[in-house]
C-alpha cells in the first residue's frame, strides 16, 4: 500500500466520522426533522364522490382520512423509519371506466397500494386495471363474489362477500323467528333490479322456502324509483309477516315512508344490506318510519371504544354516520399494517404479506382478518335494529347491545 492510499484511507475515515457526527448531532438536536425526512408512503384512496353514489363515497373518503390522520399522529409507519402516509385521492365518479382511468393515474403517481372502490362494478374494472401492475388493491365494500373469485392476485376484500353475508343473514333470521315462537311465515321481497337486489332476490327465492318461509311475491323496481305507492298497496293486500327490502338509500326510505303513511305494519322489516336500514341519516330524518327496522349489514364492533370515537368525529365533521366510515377506516389501518409488515412499498412484498398472515381489523367485528384467495374469511356482517332513534346491534350475541324487538306491535 502506498502512502497516498494511506492518506486517502485517512481522509475517507475522517469524512465518515464527520458525517456520523453530524448525523448524531442532528438526531439529538432535531428528532422531528429527521423523522420527517423518511419519504412519505403514498396510498391511493378511491371512492365515488361524484355521480349516483357520491354520498356513500364521501363517507368512505372520510373514514380513510381519519385512519391516515391517526396513523400519522401515532408516528407513521415505524418499519419504514416513521414514514408518513400521504393520501392520493381518486374519484371514480360512480362509473366503471372512470374507475379504471383513475387507477392508471394512481399507478402513475406511484402509490404503494389502493384502498376503496365501493360499488361492485366500480371495483371490477379498478381491480383489474391494478392487476396489470400487480398493484395491491383492498376492496372496501363491493360485495359481488366474482371480484375475488376471478383469480386476480392483487385483489383483496375487507368486507364479507355477498354469499357470506346472505348466509349469515338467513341464519340469523331463522334464529330470530325461532326465539319468538315462529310468528313469521310469509314473506314479500322488494328489490331493485341491479346486481345486488336481483341477486339477493333470486337467492332468497330458493333459500327461504327451505327454511320454512313462504314467499308470497317478489317485486322488483328500477333505481331510481320515484314512487312506491303501488308496491306498498300490493304489500297491503298480500299481508305478509315479513317484508325483505333490498335497495339503495332513496328507494329504501321511500318504501319505509310509504308503508308508514299507509299504516302497513308487518311483523318486521328485515333488510339485507338495506340501503338505509342502518343509516343514521334515515333515523334522524324519519324516526317513525325507521323505528324497528332490522338490517343485516356491515357495521362496526360496538364494544370497541374507538368506534364510538370515529362516530363522534364523523358527526363533528357534519356528516351522518354509516358503515362506510368504519369500514374504510379499518381497511386503511389494515393496509398500513401490511405495508409495515412488508417493511417496504414494493408491490410483491405487500402482496406476499397480505396473503400469508393475519391482521387487526380496525373497528370492524372481524377478530383477526385473514385473506384466503383474496377474501377476508373472518369478515362478518352484524344484525342491527333501529331502537330509540339509534342503530343498535342485536346479533350475534358477542356484539349485541340490546335485545331484538320482534315481532313489532301491530
Amino acid at each position: 500500500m502506498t502512502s497516498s492510499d494511506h492518506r486517502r484511507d485517512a481522509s475517507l475515515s475522517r469524512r465518515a466520522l464527520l458525517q456520523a457526527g453530524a448525523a448524531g448531532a442532528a438526531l439529538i438536536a432535531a428528532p422531528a426533522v429527521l423523522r420527517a425526512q423518511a419519504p412519505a408512503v403514498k396510498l391511493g384512496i378511491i371512492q365515488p364522490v361524484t355521480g349516483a353514489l357520491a354520498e356513500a363515497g364521501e363517507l368512505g373518503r372520510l373514514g380513510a382520512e381519519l385512519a391516515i390522520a391517526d396513523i400519522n399522529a401515532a408516528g407513521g409507519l415505524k418499519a419504514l423509519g416513521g414514514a408518513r402516509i400521504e393520501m392520493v385521492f381518486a374519484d371514480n365518479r360512480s362509473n366503471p371506466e372512470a374507475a379504471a382511468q383513475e387507477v392508471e393515474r394512481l399507478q402513475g403517481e406511484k402509490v404503494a397500494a389502493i384502498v376503496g372502490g365501493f360499488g361492485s362494478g366500480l371495483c371490477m374494472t379498478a381491480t383489474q386495471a391494478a392487476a396489470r401492475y400487480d398493484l395491491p388493491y383492498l376492496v372496501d365494500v363491493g360485495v359481488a363474489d366474482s371480484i375475488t373469485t376471478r383469480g386476480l392476485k392483487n385483489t383483496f376484500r375487507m368486507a364479507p362477500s355477498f354469499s357470506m353475508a346472505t348466509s349469515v343473514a338467513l341464519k340469523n333470521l331463522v334464529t330470530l323467528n325461532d326465539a319468538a315462537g315462529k310468528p313469521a311465515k310469509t314473506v314479500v321481497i322488494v328489490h331493485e333490479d341491479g346486481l345486488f337486489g336481483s341477486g339477493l332476490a333470486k337467492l332468497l327465492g330458493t333459500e327461504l322456502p327451505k327454511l320454512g318461509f313462504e314467499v308470497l311475491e317478489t317485486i322488483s323496481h328500477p333505481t331510481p324509483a320515484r314512487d312506491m305507492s303501488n308496491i306498498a298497496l300490493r304489500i297491503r293486500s298480500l299481508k305478509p309477516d315479513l317484508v325483505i327490502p333490498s335497495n339503495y338509500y332513496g328507494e329504501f326510505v321511500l318504501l319505509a315512508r310509504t308503508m308508514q303513511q299507509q299504516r302497513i305494519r308487518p311483523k318486521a322489516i328485515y333488510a339485507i344490506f338495506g340501503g338505509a336500514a342502518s343509516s343514521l341519516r334515515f333515523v334522524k330524518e324519519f324516526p317513525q318510519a325507521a323505528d324497528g327496522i332490522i338490517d343485516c349489514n356491515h357495521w362496526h364492533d360496538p364494544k370497541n371504544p374507538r368506534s364510538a370515537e370515529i362516530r363522534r368525529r364523523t358527526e363533528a365533521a357534519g356528516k351522518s354516520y354509516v358503515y362506510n366510515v368504519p369500514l374504510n377506516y379499518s381497511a386503511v389501518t389494515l393496509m398500513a399494517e401490511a405495508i409495515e409488515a412488508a417493511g417496504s412499498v414494493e408491490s410483491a412484498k405487500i402482496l406476499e404479506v397480505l396473503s400469508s398472515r393475519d391482521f387487526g381489523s380496525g373497528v370492524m367485528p372481524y377478530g383477526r382478518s385473514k385473506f384466503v384467495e383474496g377474501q377476508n374469511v373472518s369478515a362478518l356482517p352484524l344484525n342491527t335494529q333501529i331502537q330509540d332513534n339509534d342503530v343498535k346491534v342485536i346479533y350475534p350475541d358477542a356484539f349485541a347491545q340490546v335485545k331484538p324487538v320482534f315481532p313489532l306491535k301491530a
Partner: protein
Amino acid sequence: MTATDLLRPLLVVAVFAVVPWLGVSNATLNFLVYMLIVALAAQGWNILGGFGGQYSFGHAAFFGTGAYATAILQVQLGVNAWVGLVCGVAAGVAVGLFVGFLSFRSGLRGSYFALVTLAFAEVFRVVANAAGFTGGAAGLLIRLEPGVATLQFADRRITCMLVLGFVGLGLVISTWLTRSRFGAHLIAVRENEQAAEALGVDPMRVKLGAIALSAALTALAGCLYAQYFLFIDATIAYGPWISVEALLAPLVGGAGTVFGPLIGALALHGLGEATKGIAGSVPGIDLVVFGVVLILVIAFLPGGLMGGLARLAGRLRTIARGRRPAVEA
C-alpha cells in the same frame, strides 16, 4: 373517391398514431383509448344522425349488442375473441336493420324516431338485466389473459393503435359518404325526403343502409369497449350514457362532417381531463366544464367546432380579400 380524398383522414390518423410512442404515461394512453372508443361510437351515430338526419337517441342498442355479443361468445361459448368481434359487429347490424325497418316503415322521423330508438335501447337494457345468458345484473367478466389471440394487449400502445385503425376506417367511410352516390342520396333524404323521393331516391333503402353502417361502427365500439375493460353489465352496455356520448361528440364537433365526431370527442374528453388535472381537488369540476362547453357550442357554434372553424376560415378569407385591393391601391 380519389387518393387525394384519403389524404386528410390518413394525415389525422398519422398525427394520433405518433402520440402513444412519445413516452406518454399509461394514464394518458388509457384516456386516448377510451376517447377513441367514444369517437368510434360517435362516428357511427354521425352516419345516421349527421349525414342522414335521423337523430337517434338510442345508439346504446347497437353499442350494447356489440359488447354483449362478443362477451357472451367468449365467456359462455369459448369462441375466439377476433371471431367474437366480427360476430358482435354482425349482431349490431342485425339489430340496426331490425330497429330501422320497424321505425322507417312506420314513417317515424325527428323526435318520434329519437323516442323509438331510446325505447329500444331501454328494452334491451331491461332484458339484458333480467336474462340469464347475459349474466343478469351481475354482468359479464371476460378473463384477463393478454395475448394477440385473446385481443387483449399487455402494451396499451398496441390497443391504442388497433382502436385508432378502426377510427381511421370510420374516417374513410365518412369521406366516402361525402364523395359517393349513396352519400349524396343520404344527404338528399336528410334535406328533404319527399323531394329526394320525387327525384327517384328510395328513402327506405338509403336509410336502412345508413342505419346498418351506423350500427356496425357503434357495435364495433362496443366490442372494443368490452375487450378493453373486460367487464360489462346492462347499465354499461345499454345505458343511456353511451347514447348521449355518441350524439354529443358529433354535435360539439360538427354533425355531418367527416372529422366532427373525432374532434368533438377529443375536445369534450380532453377538456374534461385537463380540468381534472388542473383543479383535481374539486370533485366534479370537469363535469361542470363539460356542461359549460356544451352550452357555449349550442349557443355560438350551431355547426359544431368544424362549422366554427369553417366560418373562421371563411371570415379570414374575406378579410384577406378585403385587404388586397387596399394594398394594391
